[in-house]
């Protein structure tokens, strides 16, 4: 098992290298001249050249890439000239907020999605199944940014149950209960779509698995229906659901862009949107890279979990 | 007279490639140093169990797979010359009938469309000629003339195999490789298809390379038999001799294992 994990970890390295190349190239392709962006339109040619040299922009692309990666490995993500602080500091601060939000949503959607999927598969064609199917349909069809707005209008503005935005109250907050109160609405909104996707897939794979020959064998052994469904069928269905939970990590991390904007959650998504409009290239570069790396990590976890379930994958 | 198929020291290895980290993937020798020949007008059976390499051998002979080493000649022409001309060059001389008749017909094309390809591409016939040839082919395999406008799913396994045989015959080959042509069929249908194959062989003067795992079927149709075991030909001889006095241990085991009435 450890061998397998190590193997997977090594296999992730080329992916990370690929990611860094793509991110680097994307940012290198951005039109406009960073020096002008920093110095303004009235910069003298000497100053532009000086900045370019400082940033290493006068070197060939490959050298620039290696310098950039070398700096990354030393924890130097560059400096955001607009925020006037090191990119890494900003990203770390923002990323922890995003992780709290995305992590909570991922837990919620995995749990609710699996539960709803199983229940509606087991109680297929009953009212429970119909209700679940209905909510799943609404969930996957609802734009999350619109749902977020509705949530704010209903729960924060009309009923005044929960705070409409931010991560902590402006005054007197900062403790865990305060964080949780602020977390409820964005986390709930963010997990709706993923819950729908997982529930759907769980239902479909349960129904598929229940038709397999080995489930018939389980029945032929004389097992009761509970064991057949919750042990034999569920474990097999989980094998195909787990990688999708990994993919949902990507949707949740990405979807945080909208949710953080709507709820003014101080995460990396909202930061990226702002950085793109202010053309803060280094910040975008760093932010995209960190989120993508986190996604690679989540997928790795899903892979390992899947191989724990399915012995056929270990070879 | 030149031989229909001549195979000399043929080897096929799967896997064994270098991986990213310098290791090698698992290597499987599917065919090991096989030498045999199919005479003109003969039926040579290749018998073996799963994993014996018999299908790999058959696929190499028709150019669907490339050998790792060794020589092959098809109707006197070197395999590598044919391969240089593309699979089309093979198609004109040698055709293949697959085990699963339904899978060997494209489910989204009518039988007519499927049969049209060899007549047009390999034979270069014009419209009228293609139409009349198609009718002849359906006659030859005892299928009704309206078969051409139907889809594969409308036929039973036995009918589909007749159609697949017609498709192979369309290229007017002199040699046919039959890869377990009756294994997927019910017994009664199986016997009919065997009789059909026997008749076609006489009518079109064909040579058969007949791949099978079923000894009784092989005995009923073949002139000579080669027994394959883990990629090697362990015994080769005339059908009567091999079945009445097997020499190799594996052949003996195979014959004694076959259930008999």
């Amino acid at each position: 098992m450890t061998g397998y994990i190590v193997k997977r970890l090594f296999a992730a390295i080329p992916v990370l290298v690929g990611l860094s190349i793509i991110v680097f190239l994307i940012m290198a392709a951005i039109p406009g001249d960073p020096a002008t962006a920093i110095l303004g339109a009235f910069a003298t040619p000497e100053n532009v050249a000086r900045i370019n040299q400082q940033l290493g922009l006068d070197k060939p692309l490959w050298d620039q890439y290696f310098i950039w990666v070398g700096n990354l490995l030393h924890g130097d993500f560059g400096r955001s000239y607009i925020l006037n602080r090191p990119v890494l500091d900003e990203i770390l601060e923002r990323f922890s907020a995003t992780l709290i939000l995305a992590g909570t949503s991922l837990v919620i959607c995995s749990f609710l999605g699996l539960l709803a999927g199983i229940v509606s598969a087991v109680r297929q064609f009953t009212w429970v199944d119909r209700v679940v199917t209905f909510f799943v349909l609404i969930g996957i069809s609802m734009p999350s940014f619109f749902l977020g707005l509705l949530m704010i209008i209903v729960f924060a503005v009309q009923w005044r149950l929960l705070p409409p935005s931010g991560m902590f109250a402006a005054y007197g907050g900062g403790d865990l209960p305060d964080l949780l109160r602020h977390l409820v609405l964005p986390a709930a909104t963010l997990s709706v779509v993923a819950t729908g996707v997982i529930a759907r897939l769980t239902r479909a794979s349960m129904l598929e698995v229940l038709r397999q020959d080995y489930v018939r064998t389980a029945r032929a052994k004389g097992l009761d229906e509970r064991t057949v469904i919750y042990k034999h069928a569920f474990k097999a269905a989980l094998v195909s659901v787990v990688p999708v939970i990994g993919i949902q990590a990507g949707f949740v991390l990405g979807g945080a862009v909208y949710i953080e904007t709507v709820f003014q959650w101080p995460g990396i998504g909202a930061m990226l949107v702002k950085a793109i409009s202010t053309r803060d290239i280094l910040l975008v570069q760093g932010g995209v890279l960190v989120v993508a790396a986190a996604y690679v990590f989540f997928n790795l976890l899903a892979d390992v979990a899947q191989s724990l379930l399915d012995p056929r994958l270990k070879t | 007279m030149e031989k229909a198929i001549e195979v000399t020291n043929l080897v096929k290895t799967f896997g064994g490639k270098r991986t990213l980290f310098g290791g090698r993937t698992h290597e499987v020798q599917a065919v090991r140093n096989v030498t045999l020949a199919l005479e003109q007008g003969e039926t040579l059976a290749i018998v073996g169990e799963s994993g014996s390499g018999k299908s790999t051998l058959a696929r190499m002979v028709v150019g669907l797979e490339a050998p790792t080493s060794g020589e092959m000649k098809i109707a006197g022409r070197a395999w590598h010359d044919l391969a240089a001309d593309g699979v089309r060059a093979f198609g004109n001389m040698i055709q293949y009938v697959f085990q699963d008749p339904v899978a060997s017909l494209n489910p989204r094309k009518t039988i007519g469309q499927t049969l049209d390809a060899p007549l047009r591409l390999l034979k270069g016939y014009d419209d009228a000629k293609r139409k009349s040839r198609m009718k002849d082919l359906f006659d030859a395999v005892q299928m009704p003339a309206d078969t051409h406008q139907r889809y594969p799913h409308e036929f039973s396994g036995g009918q589909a195999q007749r159609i697949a045989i017609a498709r192979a015959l369309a290229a007017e080959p002199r040699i046919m490789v039959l890869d377990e042509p009756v294994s997927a069929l019910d017994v009664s249908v199986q016997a009919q298809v065997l009789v059909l194959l026997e008749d076609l062989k006489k009518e079109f003067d064909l040579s058969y390379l007949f791949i099978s795992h079923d000894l009784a079927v092989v005995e009923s149709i073949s002139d000579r038999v080669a027994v394959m075991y883990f990629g090697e030909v362990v015994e080769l001889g005339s059908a009567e001799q091999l079945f009445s006095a097997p020499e190799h241990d594996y052949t003996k085991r195979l014959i004694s294992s076959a259930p008999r009435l």
Partner: protein
Amino acid sequence: MSGSATMKRVEVIKESRRPTAWQLLMNNTLAAIGFYLICAVILVAVAAPLLPIPNPDATSLAERFLPFGSPGHLLGTDHLGRDVLARLIWGTQVSLLVGISASVIAAFFGSAIGLVSGYAGGRTDNLMMRGIDMLMAFPYILLALAIVAVLGPGLMNALYAISVVNIPFFARNIRGITIGLSHREFVDAARLSGKGHLSIILTEILPNVLPVIVITMSTTVGWMILETAGLSFLGLGAQPPQADLGSMLGEARTQMFTHPFVATAPGLMVFIIVMSINLLGDGVRDALDPRLRAGALSRPRAVTRIERRDTPTAQPAGGAALNVVELETSFEGTKGPEPAVKGVSFSLSKGECLGLIGESGSGKSVTALSLLGLVASPPGIITGGRVDIDGEDILSMPETKITSYRGGKVAYVFQDPLTTLHPLFTIGDQVAEAIRVHQPVSQTEARAKAVELFKAVRLPDPEQRSSAYPHELSGGQRQRVGIAMALANDPDIIIADEPTTALDVTVQAEILRLLQVLREERGLALLFITHDFGVVAQICDKVAVMRYGKIVEAGATSEVLRNPQHDYTKRLIACVPKPGQGRAFLEGVRALLDREARGRA
């Protein structure tokens, strides 16, 4: 004459009865709702220039935030006094156009990549898929953001970004299907028919992949509309004054607390569009996927549905371990239940082996599975007859009691041991589980007993093997495990459904020997389902020949084989080549076929 005419008409009706994909789609209420809804939306959006609505971009500061239902402004106005209805309709047009274009672009490039990659295989495939993997290593929306960051905000750029982001999805899906298809025999056959690679991709593979492309498009176009709206919402898509639904929502967000309605209208519109597309997409998928069409995706019950019209009275058991009377099993069809087993009766005494032989479609396996209600239901229904074990009718028992017979008094051995053993549990656990269902023993004891059973079925190295998974064993070893599981609770009866069909001859011989030995040692009654007369001759005392759901002939094996009475049996036996018969076999068959042809004429 009139007879054949009626026949023809019946056939024609049958043909037209088979619903087309379109009929299937429209029969699905939800899909039909989705279809009409999205059609209505598209119609209104396309007709925007013709509709009597104000200029969507005409601002009028005097008329800001007019409420819902104001004269001239049916849905009110926004913060610049623009008509919300007009903006909604024009915005819908833009959103639909962008979303659909994005999905067409993504489908085209993604499918092309998938087709080439899947068909070419090897290095090309590897290279292309590594690239696709790289794109997929980014969270979906993040990649779109990065692309917009490069290209700059704007509607067209958002369209490109969303298309690029969705290409991997199509490429992966289509590649998977293509790989499966390009290893199919019909592709090899096409190559031997003289077709080139391009021609094979376009004329052999593409037609088979097309439904998948359509399904994938119909299930992703909703997403793409949603995502483009999302980018616009963030201010990275449509730029003012041009508006799509997303940017309308984005602009209205700032006045959300005071004038929530302005934001609600575009939000609801996106929701309606996406939902109707999703409904339609699900319908399209169901209609084009033949697996779903067969109703395979409904959950089978624990026990086959039993709806017997009448129950034959019990017959004197006479020492029979198993007595089947007039068993009838049907499958739900479009025109009500269609019987597959039509009144089958037989009995099996203790220590006896009965062979049930027949060709495909004869109903032999359905018969075997019906005995303990293991026919998948739906679509299976047991519509008649009784199954007596020790004089008690199984089919009258409550579900829990039937379950207790399974694996206890009566055990099954199935055909393909690779698919019939659970791939995710070790073989030791699977056998131990079978023991613990029926016997009050601890897990350790059960495991120990499982090892004993593995020894009994001569599985090599039983202690170690018991913690192996099915895929780590050979076919013959797996079937030994299957037999060990059947023996777990010392059953009286074993029902073996083609247990050696998936195995090589030499392995088959070993398994048959094993079954024979076990039967003698343990006094088992064996019901042996097969299509092979040779196997029957080797191990069965009695044989029943099935055809079209009925037993046409039954008797002692030697008797039936030597002197078959029914024409069908005669024919079947004549069609089995016998060792030593040589070429005489085909002569015999030819004579038989000629006789039959003359008989028909």
